[in-house]
């Protein structure tokens, strides 16, 4: 297949992602609006960040008035999974792929576009990923923009309903792996329980939600990695 054919195939496979992104980004836009962010700023954030969890936590931190350092640490933690996906993609590409191509397709490392890219049979042609990015990212960016605007227009009942959409996206990301792997299921259960405890127990009430998320993630993941280290053949991700 030529680069052009790969690009078109990626664009076609990106259409369901476009729809899902648009709907979920609407709810992200409502979060942004509640944080006092304008439609343009929200759109700029989505275009340059292209990440649901990272932007959600970012808007929350902005609303809380967190520090820049806290923002950097929190983005690192919220997006640490992309490190792993990026490692996996580095193995999937032809070793001769030039650095500028790697830099360009790196922006498309999201749960969904990674999922498409890593499932291509054989080596990955970056043009396939470009096709998927070209279709999916406008859905994400546009959805965020309209979310901020519609957040002002829509009735409270609709805003309330859309507010859980983003959590739906998170749930759709961690439940299927939990079904396949008992240790992942255990870490998710521990995360729910400890997160509830830390957020409701007054001892921790002085701590920002971002810091709570960092601490809980590092402690639970490190405990899981120590108690249940993964075997080499289980190296698959996503």
């Amino acid at each position, binding site marked *: 297949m030529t680069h052009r054919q790969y690009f078109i195939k990626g664009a076609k496979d990106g259409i369901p992602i476009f729809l899902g992104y648009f709907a979920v980004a609407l709810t992200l836009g409502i979060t942004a609006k509640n944080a006092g962010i304008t439609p343009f700023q929200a759109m700029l*954030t989505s275009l340059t960040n292209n990440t649901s969890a990272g932007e959600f936590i970012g808007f929350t931190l902005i609303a809380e008035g967190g520090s820049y350092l806290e923002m950097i640490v929190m983005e690192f933690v919220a997006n640490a999974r*992309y490190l792993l996906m990026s*490692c996996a993609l580095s193995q999937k590409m032809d070793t001769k792929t030039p*650095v500028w191509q790697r830099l360009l397709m790196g922006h498309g490392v999201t749960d969904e576009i990674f999922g498409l890219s890593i499932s291509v049979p054989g080596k990955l042609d970056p043009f396939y990923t470009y096709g998927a990015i070209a279709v999916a990212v406008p859905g994400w960016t546009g959805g965020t923009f309209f979310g901020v605007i519609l957040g002002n227009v829509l009735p409270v*009942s609709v805003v309330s309903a859309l507010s859980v959409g983003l*959590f739906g996206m998170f749930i759709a990301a961690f439940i299927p792996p939990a079904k396949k792997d008992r240790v992942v299921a255990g870490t998710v259960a521990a995360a729910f329980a400890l997160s*509830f405890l830390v957020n409701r127990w007054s001892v921790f009430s002085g701590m920002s939600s971002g810091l709570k998320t960092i601490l809980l993630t590092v402690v639970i993941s490190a405990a899981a990695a120590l108690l249940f280290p993964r075997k080499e053949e289980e190296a698959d991700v996503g």
Partner: protein
Amino acid sequence: MSGNIYIYIACMAVTTYLVRILPLTLIRKQIQNRFIRSFLYYVPYVTLAVMTFPAILDATQEPLAAVLALIVAILLAYFEKSLFLVCVCACATVFVTEWLIHMTA
């Protein structure tokens, strides 16, 4: 809001982009350390779970609607329905539940 919004966005964008491209451009071999590999494997699921609960309970007008949406989303995701369907059904659950609560109140 205490800082400049554009500096916040730049911090977010640069950190996220570096996380994405550093392994892709620098690491051409597999990471060998078993602890780091395992840690990185668990991190995404733990972060998403921590961010979901109990925050979802505060996202809606009625906490009961959020609890039902959480259950619906977990069930649909368990049966590996698409991202789109999981999100739409979670939103619909909240809408219907709150409508019923406000109808009967």
